[in-house]
């Protein structure tokens, strides 16, 4: 059942590739603005790189969050999903997984490339990749709660950011912290473990909260 939901959402995303690409372009452009703005001060660039890339990833995922349930809501397929004989928890988990693959994985893959503008070592770039890989599921999971709660509201996009961005802060601290630690020659492992733990906790609670949010939004 889960695989049908994921497959369905991936197919829909493929038919609307432009939406997916706009998120990636946004991420690339925001990250690239900093080296242009700051100039060739490699020391400073290296220092801010982890934070900049992570913040850009958070903002880029904001762009796609409002679409997570909104399209299905408008054409009535969300109602039908709520009426399928399977736990709504699984439906939401499937849609969140699809969102991660569609909106976050491209960012994770391209991050080492855009990170290269900040004069980072190969090792640091690899760690940037790993920290985003571990941390981005958190963005989709917590984001799903915000998307479910703001469904059908006018100006929902802004409201999602206000609701969700503060909840992203732990992921930002540990994700960027892991990369910073490696730049300073320390072990990034503690940060990554905490980030992983945060991802697991949100995987358990977010779908449940988002399911409750959807039920309320569709009443």
């Amino acid at each position, binding site marked *: *059942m889960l695989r*049908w*939901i994921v497959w*369905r959402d991936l*197919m*829909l995303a493929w*038919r*609307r590739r432009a939406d997916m690409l706009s998120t990636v372009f946004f991420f690339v452009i925001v990250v690239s603005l900093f080296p242009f703005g700051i100039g060739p001060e490699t020391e400073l660039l290296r220092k801010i790189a982890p934070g900049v890339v992570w913040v850009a990833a958070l903002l880029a995922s904001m762009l796609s969050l409002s679409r997570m349930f909104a399209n299905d809501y*408008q*054409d*009535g*397929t969300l*109602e*039908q*999903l*709520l*009426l*399928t*004989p*399977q*736990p709504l928890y699984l439906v939401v988990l499937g849609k969140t997984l699809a969102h991660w693959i569609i909106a976050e994985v491209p960012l994770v893959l391209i991050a080492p490339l855009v990170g290269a503008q900040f004069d980072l070592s190969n090792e640091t770039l690899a760690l940037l990749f790993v920290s985003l890989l571990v941390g981005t599921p958190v963005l989709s999971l917590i984001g799903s709660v915000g998307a479910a709660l703001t469904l059908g509201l006018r100006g929902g996009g802004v409201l999602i950011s206000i609701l969700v961005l503060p909840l992203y802060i732990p992921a930002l601290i540990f994700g960027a912290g892991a990369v910073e630690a490696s730049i300073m020659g320390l072990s990034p492992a503690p940060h990554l473990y905490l980030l992983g733990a945060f991802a697991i906790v949100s995987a358990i609670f977010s779908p449940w909260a988002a399911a409750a949010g959807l039920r309320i939004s*569709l*009443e």
Partner: protein
Amino acid sequence: MRGDRRLFSELDFAVSPGTLVQLTGPNGSGKTSLLRILCGLLAPAEGEVKWQGANIRSLGEEYFTSVTYLGHRHGVKDELSAVENLRISNALNGIEVSKQRARAVLEQMGLAGRELLPARLLSEGQRRRVALARLLVCDTTLWLLDEVMTSLDKGAVALVRSLIENHLANGGIAFVATHQELGLPDTLTRRLELTT
């Protein structure tokens, strides 16, 4: 209750297998709300809905194996073709439909030759037919159909009528909110008129 307004109260009825309940009433009298309460999307402010003696709230997902709800929003994805729409919506309900079967069903719904077009290229009535094709595949007992006749031509209305007739003959129950006469025998039909 919708907002502060009480739509209906003291509504008490039981429906036995093989019955069609035709819901009528002016716009805004609560036909859609009643259907959404019956399928469990909306919680009633007071009272309860029972299915085979058990409250549908306690039945949870199990109840949904017996119900098909078609709302006035089609539930048809614009980006997907008719075949894909039909196969995916059924797969999510636990029914695997082969491509050949999906094509056969859509042909029966009068969509021959248009099965592979993205649904956004179809007309309103054709999209409605794609949504209705689900009724041919599902094996649920309770059908809740909300204004499904709108934008259908005469042929399609006759098709829906025969679908409902078949369903009732097989011991199914159908709730239909519509102002059109379905023309089914009075012995099978119960009318429920809501007032504002």
